[in-house]
């Protein structure tokens, strides 16, 4: 991964044959008929297969950026390009999946049936993974027939991740997926997300408000500043790709989180 040239890169038309996973160019997102500016002139290139964590103070538009990429809110200005398509077509072609803070499982469906949901609606998606294999991948083998209320919060979020992977998306958008979980569960799932990322080669965008989580997971960290939401910095995390929870106690890691914290204070 040659990441040296990957900086904030406003208006950088990627002239390479591999255009990257997501290209965001001079995007504004406004609410309430333009009176509230959530994102202002945001540009960023996400390379194919990268793990990018999005960090920033509350109200900086982290989720809004994800929602704009996912075609859940429209961009008032600028261009968003997802796997060479506009967000709407990318959504219809199942180029990305979205994991929400709430697991948003349908409570009347078993774990397995929840994972199968994406295959039953929309166009169903041609390429799909075996739901049972995915439940095994997220560590829920044997719990296929459990209803959501029989699962813990962490297990429900695992089901949500399996559901997101069932369409074999090229991009996984994760919007504070572990924000509501306790720290122990969260640490465990962090390691598993890294493992899943390595095993599937999916591009992952991961919104978080936790500095250690952003540094531990991210190959890159996209730092946003607030009022209005804009790009503060897009930086590579100088840590080896194979990471373990214990790595968070190293001096290197602490140096990175200290740097991120300092950046965050400037926002």
């Amino acid at each position, binding site marked *: 991964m040659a990441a040296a040239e990957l900086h904030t890169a406003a208006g950088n038309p990627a002239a390479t044959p591999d255009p990257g996973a997501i290209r965001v160019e001079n995007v504004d997102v406004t609410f309430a008929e333009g009176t509230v500016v959530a994102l202002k002139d945001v540009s960023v290139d996400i390379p194919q297969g990268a793990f990018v964590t999005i960090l920033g103070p509350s109200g900086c538009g982290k989720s809004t950026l994800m929602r704009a990429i996912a075609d859940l809110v429209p961009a008032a200005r600028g261009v968003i390009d997802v796997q060479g398509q506009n967000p709407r077509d990318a959504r219809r072609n199942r180029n990305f999946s979205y994991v*929400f803070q709430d697991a948003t499982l349908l409570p*009347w469906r078993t774990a397995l049936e929840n994972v199968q949901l994406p295959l*039953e*609606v929309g166009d169903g998606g041609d390429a799909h993974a075996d739901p049972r294999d995915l439940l095994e991948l997220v560590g829920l083998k044997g719990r296929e027939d459990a209803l959501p209320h029989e699962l813990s919060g962490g297990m429900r979020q695992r089901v949500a991740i399996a559901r997101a992977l069932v369409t074999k998306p090229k991009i996984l958008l994760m919007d504070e997926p572990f924000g509501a979980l306790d720290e122990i569960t969260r640490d465990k799932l962090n390691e598993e997300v890294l493992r899943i990322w390595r095993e599937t080669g999916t591009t992952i965008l991961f919104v978080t408000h936790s500095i250690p989580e952003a540094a531990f997971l991210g190959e890159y960290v996209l730092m946003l500043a607030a009022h209005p939401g804009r790009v503060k910095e897009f930086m590579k995390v100088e840590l080896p790709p194979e990471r373990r929870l214990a790595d968070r106690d190293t001096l290197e890691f602490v140096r990175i989180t200290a740097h991120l914290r300092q950046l965050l204070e400037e926002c």
Partner: protein
Amino acid sequence: MAEASQIPMPVPAPRMNRMFDAVIARGPALAAVAGLLLLWQGVVWFFEVPEYMAPSPIAVLNAFQENAGTLWLNFWPTFFEAALGFVAGNLVAIALAVWFVHNSTAERAFFPIAVFINTIPIIALAPVLVLIFGNGFAPKIIIAGLICFFPTLVNMVRGLKAVSPATLDLMRVLSASNWEIFWKVRLQSSLPFLFAALKIASTTCVIGAIVAEWIGSNFGLGALIIEATFNFRSPLLYATVFTAAFLAVVMFALVSFAESRFIRWKTSDVH
């Protein structure tokens, strides 16, 4: 876990044990009913209450025996009216709720009318319907249906709208059509609300049918109540009232059974 496995479990004698447990669990309720019946019998004996004013439990039991045929004959029309009214009233309410949820103009136009119809006392509406539809089954079914209609409409609208914004976001990311959202999400998530309303309706539809039979009918439990009252046949009146209550309990039990079959889940994503 380790502790539990060391405790020797008593060898179960399943059938007898379960029946015994059931009796024990219902013990207080059974004792209270028995106590009240005894008290009633005692009061009637002690004060020598004339039978036409308030019959003793034993007299009512006798009336059940003597009038079993009459009660049975009049049970079925009322059951039929209540059940048909229940089905019709709830179906219309569900259909309207579905329409309202997909068309807010329709909701704004017709919801006030639904409220207005609900405010008309059913006992005032009954004569009007009898004048229009005559003495047959039709006005009874309509009144039984009307009395079910409103609670179901209100609950069903709430239920169909009780889908979290996050779930709707999910369905949008999945490019689900409105029909798919309705079929896969809204309908299912409305079921607890619907059954709450159906439980209310299961007993009120019996009331509706009986009230309709009071106004103009020569069959059904309602008609029997009127006849027994006017002829001072108090034991028969009481027996009829108990039969009507039994009918309502049966309807309620049927709905509760259906609920337990349809809803085996609990909401879990509440933070």
